[in-house]
């Protein structure tokens, strides 16, 4: 299983990412089919995550510098409260991420065939429980890299990209909280994003090393303790067009008090969605087509995503109570 971060354009993932629909979901978690036929979210069974760094330098970045950037990125995720993540650097290894078996390896790797993929995360999973047994991350040497504090023109920031990939390593899928434009020569450019888990990276030379609330919500959902779930609520409902459900709509819940945005998706034929991990408060809801990236970056390629509708707001505000679910919401959209 592999999850990718793209440079300029999204490539189809090599395997499907199953979007899980659970009552507390606020983003996409990576799911996998298990032996009983069900789909479960993947997660580590215990911590720390012990990892190796490939002992390979590239222009502008030595292996120790990569290790330091990875350590900073791990700590950024570990700073999320009530989650309990931890990691441990074991040492440098001669193994590349793709060749390692039985060890978690992060390092540079040559992938000239993936000319728009900056990095990718792969997994070895327990097919019964969905537990992550091993995860490896490669950064593509096709691109120039940097660990400069403020970024370096024309080079991708290692820590920014590793931060995204570590989100995958912990079980998060892609978020659609971002806006893009199509470039004249093909591909897409990000205009803005509200999640480190948006599948397309900022332009080379930029740094993007902070988590957003959507990222925190996703990680808290996967690993959060019961007090987190008790302290937050969710909104559930449907996205409909001419009375029928819309599959694959991106739903955003925005709290005007905190200016926090959390995303979700309609994941069934009847347009049902759940946006979870919401702090108590009153929310604005908005639905839009999943057209700021390749839908395969978000949902299984077998999902017949509906793009033919205009973005729309829900005509009422929705209050979320602590530990509660505001249900029965219907966002009505119109065809383009």
């Amino acid at each position, binding site marked *: 299983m592999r999850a990718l971060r793209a440079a300029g354009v999204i490539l189809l993932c090599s395997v499907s990412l199953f979007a899980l629909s659970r009552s507390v979901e606020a983003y996409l978690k990576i799911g996998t089919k298990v032996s009983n036929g069900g789909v479960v979210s993947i997660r580590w069974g215990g911590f720390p995550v012990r990892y190796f760094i490939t002992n390979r330098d590239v222009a502008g970045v030595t292996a120790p510098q990569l290790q330091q950037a990875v350590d900073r990125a791990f700590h950024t995720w570990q700073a999320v409260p009530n989650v309990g993540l931890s990691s441990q650097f074991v040492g440098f290894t001669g193994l590349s991420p793709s060749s390692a078996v039985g060890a978690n390896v992060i390092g540079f790797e040559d992938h000239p065939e993936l000319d728009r993929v900056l990095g990718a995360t792969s997994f070895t999973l327990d097919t019964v429980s969905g537990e992550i047994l091993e995860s490896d991350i490669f950064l593509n040497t096709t691109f120039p890299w940097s660990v400069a504090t403020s970024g370096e023109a024309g080079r991708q920031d290692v820590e920014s990209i590793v931060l995204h990939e570590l989100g995958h390593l912990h079980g998060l899928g892609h978020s659609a*909280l*971002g*806006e893009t434009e199509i470039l004249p020569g093909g591909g897409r*450019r*990000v*205009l*803005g*994003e*509200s999640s480190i888990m948006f599948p397309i990276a*900022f*332009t080379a*030379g*930029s740094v*993007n090393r902070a988590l*957003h609330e959507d990222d925190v919500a996703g990680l808290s959902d996967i690993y959060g303790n019961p007090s987190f779930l008790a302290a937050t609520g969710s909104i559930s409902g449907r996205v409909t067009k001419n009375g029928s459900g819309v599959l694959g709509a991106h739903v*955003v819940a*925005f709290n*005007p*008090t905190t*200016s926090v*945005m959390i995303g979700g998706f309609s994941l069934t034929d009847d347009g049902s969605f759940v946006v979870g991990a919401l702090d*108590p*408060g*009153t929310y*604005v809801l*908005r639905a*839009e087509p999943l057209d700021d990236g390749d839908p395969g970056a978000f949902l299984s390629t077998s999902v017949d995503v509906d793009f033919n509708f*205009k*973005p*729309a*707001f*829900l*005509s*009422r*505000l*929705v*209050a*979320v*109570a*602590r530990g*509660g679910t*505001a249900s029965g919401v219907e966002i009505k959209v119109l065809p383009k």
Partner: protein
Amino acid sequence: MIRAVLGWLLLVPAVACAQPHRGSIELGGGIGWVGGSAAGSAAANETRNPSTGSTPLTLFQTDSRTLSAATLDVRAGVYITPRLLVSATFQYSRPALRAHLSSDFEGATSIDADTTVSSYTFGATGEYRLSAGGWVPFVSGGAGQLRQVPDGGDVLTAAEIHAGGGIRRALTHGRRPFSIRGEASASFRSRTAGFDQRHHVVPIASAGLMWSF
């Protein structure tokens, strides 16, 4: 001269009966109006790709307001002196919280989105009569607790302080007179169910029927 004195003596009992005495109880209720207030503006901002600009990318904008609403008032008080009434008060209203959603980055039609907020004010009010007679002006002031519950949401509590004035007039005379009462006041609320989470001052007007005994 004698006629004038008699007339005054004859009037005294009636006026005295209309005026409350220390320890008199007064019950009343009525309806009113609470004014609206701004409830904050916010932008749904995304972090801008530095290569495309330096300001946040605004997905859409919200400008919110709590609308004015009718109120239901209930009060019960006791006269500390013939001019000073101290009352426990309760006020209920259901104002709408409205957000105007606009400037959508992808062209979603601008709309107003509403929800209703149940608003309860429990408090104490002092009322001092400035004169005696037919139309009796008074000044009033007090404080209480404001509890607001957006439909489906959690209870928000805040402090409430109000000051104002009004006028009342006895409708009947005797030991248990009825009177009408009108009041206008300014209500300071330390926090409201609006999005801005800040204090507001809103106008309140009310009219009601009071019964003393």
